[in-house]
């Protein structure tokens, strides 16, 4: 069953056409990867999905509903969560507060209730804390850092906290932009395991951008290859790997891919 569908996304900045007629659909529960050389437009696709960029034309449907012109916060409330290529945590806050922020859209407390910390506000905070502790902090193994300010954490841990925050949004679709860029082999393996668990145990659909080709081929159900803002091919990891244009595109930018991009 199709959960997310993008049709003919076109995006340009000034005279620069960044996306040309990008179309794809993502099934409920699958891991869908987007790969391509630097500057191909991968992040721009996620930005359109999340509502951070508004496409020139084209439609985006979530569960059959047209969300093309909804604001980012509305899309978040509908179950779209996001991690970023350049970590976008709230640096002034602790790990715990960052994760709690993810839960923002489904919490109820309003301004007045918050100021008085009345019964319901208090109960909601306690329930949230328990849920985050039991489900997320435990799952991602970050108990030891929960009270630390995020700015003090190592890079790999920050990426994990970002994932935690995205999970706290109770997403249906998780958009991950280069989750293992800049990580060592062990951290990469941990992250790959988390992503698979999120798909299998939590039933969350994942769209992932990644330069680490081995990881992409290992974990994804389907892969879309883009270059110069155009879709080159979409299919299973095996079929994509043997596509001549992919070989060409990847050989052409082998250096860039090997160097990784952060």
């Amino acid at each position, binding site marked *: 069953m199709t959960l997310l569908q993008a049709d003919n996304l076109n995006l340009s900045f000034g005279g620069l056409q960044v996306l040309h007629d990008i179309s794809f659909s993502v099934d409920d529960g699958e891991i869908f990867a987007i790969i391509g050389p630097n500057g191909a437009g991968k992040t721009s696709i996620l930005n359109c999905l*999340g509502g*951070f960029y508004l496409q020139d034309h084209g439609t985006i449907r979530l569960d059959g509903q047209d969300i093309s012109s909804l604001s980012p916060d509305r899309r978040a409330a509908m179950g779209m969560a*996001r991690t970023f290529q350049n970590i976008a945590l*709230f640096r002034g*806050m602790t790990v715990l*507060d960052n994760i709690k*922020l993810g839960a923002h859209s489904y919490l109820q407390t309003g301004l007045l*209730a918050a100021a008085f910390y009345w019964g319901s506000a208090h109960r909601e905070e*306690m329930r949230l804390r328990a849920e985050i502790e039991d489900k997320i902090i435990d799952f991602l193994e970050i108990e030891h850092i929960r009270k630390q300010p995020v700015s003090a954490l190592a890079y790999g841990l920050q990426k994990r906290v970002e994932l935690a925050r995205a999970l706290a949004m109770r997403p249906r679709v998780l958009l991950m932009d280069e989750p293992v860029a800049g990580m060592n082999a062990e951290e990469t393996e941990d992250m790959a395991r988390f992503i698979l668990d999120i798909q299998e145990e939590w039933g969350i659909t994942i769209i992932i951008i990644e330069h680490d080709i081995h990881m992409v081929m290992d974990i994804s159900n389907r892969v879309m290859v883009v270059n110069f803002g155009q879709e080159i091919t979409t299919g299973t990891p095996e079929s994509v790997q043997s596509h001549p244009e992919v070989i060409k595109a990847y050989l052409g930018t082998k250096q860039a891919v090997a160097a990784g991009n952060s």
Partner: protein
Amino acid sequence: MRIGDFKETYAADEAVFRSTTSRFWLGVLFVLLLIFPFIASDYLLYMANLTGIAIVAAIGLNILTGAAGQISLGHAGFVGIGAYTSAVLTNHLGLPFLICLPLAGLMSAFFGILVGAPSMRMKGLYLCITTLAAQVIFEFIFVHWESVTGGIRGLNVPPPSIFGLKIDGEFGFYWLVLPVIILTATAARNLFRTRVGRAFIAIRDRDISAELMGINLFRYKLYAFASSSFIAGMAGCLWVSHLKTITPEHFPLHESIRYLAMIIVGGLGNILGSIFGAIFMTLIPEVLQTALKFFEQFKPEAMAYLYPLQTVVFGLLIVVFLVFEPHGLAEIWCRIKNYFRLWPFKH
């Protein structure tokens, strides 16, 4: 059983004053605050009351500027609106203090929302200029809407009454300010431990990803403007109840800047910071003045130089503080506390 236990530990973990020691010292402070008016001179009480009003106003500004990151140059204007509202309500309708207080807050909050509305389209310095414009317009209204504000001559109000009791003099007023401080500090603190306060800080730190996190930027900026100016309005009500007179000169631009200085010196986004900053900015000039008076006895002829020097010293003190502790007095306090917590074992 297990789950019940967990809930209790999380609740304890989320409490504002976690350790018994901090609760003990809070109790001590509270008792001292209760004893203070009985032993303090009228002058000291007057200073304490002034400081108290500044604390309330600074807490308000710290919500908007410190937590939500929206710099405001119009805070004194909002305090003024509260003050005028309260004066008019007292004079024309004879409303008691306890009614005037929230109404003054609501009136300021209303204008706060108006001033915050452009934040849908602008941010940063542009929004800051909007607040500057608001400050100028408010001042203009205070001066020129004579039928209501009394123009440059201003208004006089009778002493505040509470449950039919007239509160006259510094001693009585102390008992009005203290509860309002405790109330606002608690409310602000509560705000910061729920989703509303977290959203404010998220907007300050990274407004773009805050929006991707599901935070409606416009709504939360308006919340910040509304709650901040509500508190400013209450501070205004306290102000006019204290001085019993009010003119436009009480709420000029440099008063707005003084409030900004309070929260910067004290610590941005920090309740304790608002309190320390307000105390610092109110008491230090007074201390310098007293020191000068003391010197004057010995060398009256040097006063011509020393009087202007007072302002310079005050400015220098602020700069020195910020150079050595950019996070403000609250951070210094934190370090002292940590030092004593580990005290016998580590230095």
